[in-house]
């Protein structure tokens, strides 16, 4: 399924929230959308046979953040890339875990590392970092550095 067919299939359901469908190396197409139409897009893409969501990723572009969904269709044997731009001061988007249950953990990870909130997520807890970890390491503003000399105090109970 090429970009043009994909646009034709998605445009009626999405309307203005579909920003564009463009060719992209390695994928059937790259579908760019606005976060307002996220759930409709997920349903429509899932309905086109893309039953397997293989990853959710977030990228911090400093001025805005991008959230990526990569889905796979067993019939077409192709990946499709869905991406939405989110403003950096209020990065949130509707969860995809209602459509693809596999999005659950990927969204938890994206939330804790790239600080993108997923609305109506069933279980938005820390996954990789400890509970109560305040930093969002994969933001560009988070700098890694050589560890300082530190002394760990162990309290015996």
């Amino acid at each position, binding site marked *: 399924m090429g970009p043009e067919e994909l646009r034709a299939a998605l445009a009626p359901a999405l309307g203005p929230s579909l920003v564009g469908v463009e060719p992209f190396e390695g994928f059937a197409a790259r579908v760019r959308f606005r976060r307002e139409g996220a759930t409709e897009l997920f349903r429509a893409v899932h309905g086109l046979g893309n039953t397997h969501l293989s990853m959710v990723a977030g990228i911090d572009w400093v001025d805005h953040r991008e959230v990526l969904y990569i889905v796979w269709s067993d019939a077409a044997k192709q990946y499709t890339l869905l991406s939405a731009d989110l403003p950096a001061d209020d990065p949130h988007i509707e969860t995809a875990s209602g459509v693809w249950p596999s999005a659950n953990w990927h969204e938890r990870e994206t939330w804790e590392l790239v600080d993108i909130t997923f609305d109506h997520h069933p279980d938005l807890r820390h996954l990789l970092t400890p509970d109560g970890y305040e930093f969002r390491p994969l933001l560009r503003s988070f700098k890694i550095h050589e560890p300082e000399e530190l002394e*760990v105090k162990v309290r015996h109970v």
Partner: protein
Amino acid sequence: MSASPSVRPAPVARSMTLPPESLRLEGELPMAGAAVPFVEIEALRAREFIPAAKEALGSLISNRSRETLIGPVFNWAGRNSLFPLHWGLACCAIEFAAAFGARWDAERFGVVARSSPRQCDLMIVNGTVTWKVAHKLITLYEQMPEPKWVIAMGNCATGGGPFRTAYSVVPGVDKLVPVDVYIAGCPPRPEALLDGILTLEKLIRERKE
């Protein structure tokens, strides 16, 4: 004998049902079956018994013989049967497993991995220690009974390795628990691990109780 006052009360004969002197044969002592004079002694309560027995045993064996006789035996035993904790942190855990495999067979030296920290005396930190697992590592270390040793296997456990700059990694397990032997390598080969264990045996041999 002496006039000094005795703290302990003098033995008191309770039962005096001995046969009369005339019926007793010469030289025969009252044995089981016959009536025995009952001597009251101070009974030690069970809880006091163990320290008392330890003291009594300790006084039997002089400090010097403890050093020369018993110490070496336990030292020999301790260094020849090191049970490492069976756990895998990261990459080095695979080489740790390979060291117990058919080609290297760490059991030749009496090294048998046990899953419960209570039964271990050696913690081999085989991989990257993250801050999330740090307090669990300390708990495991605390759960091991004395005497216990720690081997930092690989660069990550020694100083953070390639992940030293990462936000979630402890730069060296010696920040958390005392380490006896460091093994370099990323990951160290099984031979290096065996060498580390033998180095630890050497350290224990030179150790004074």
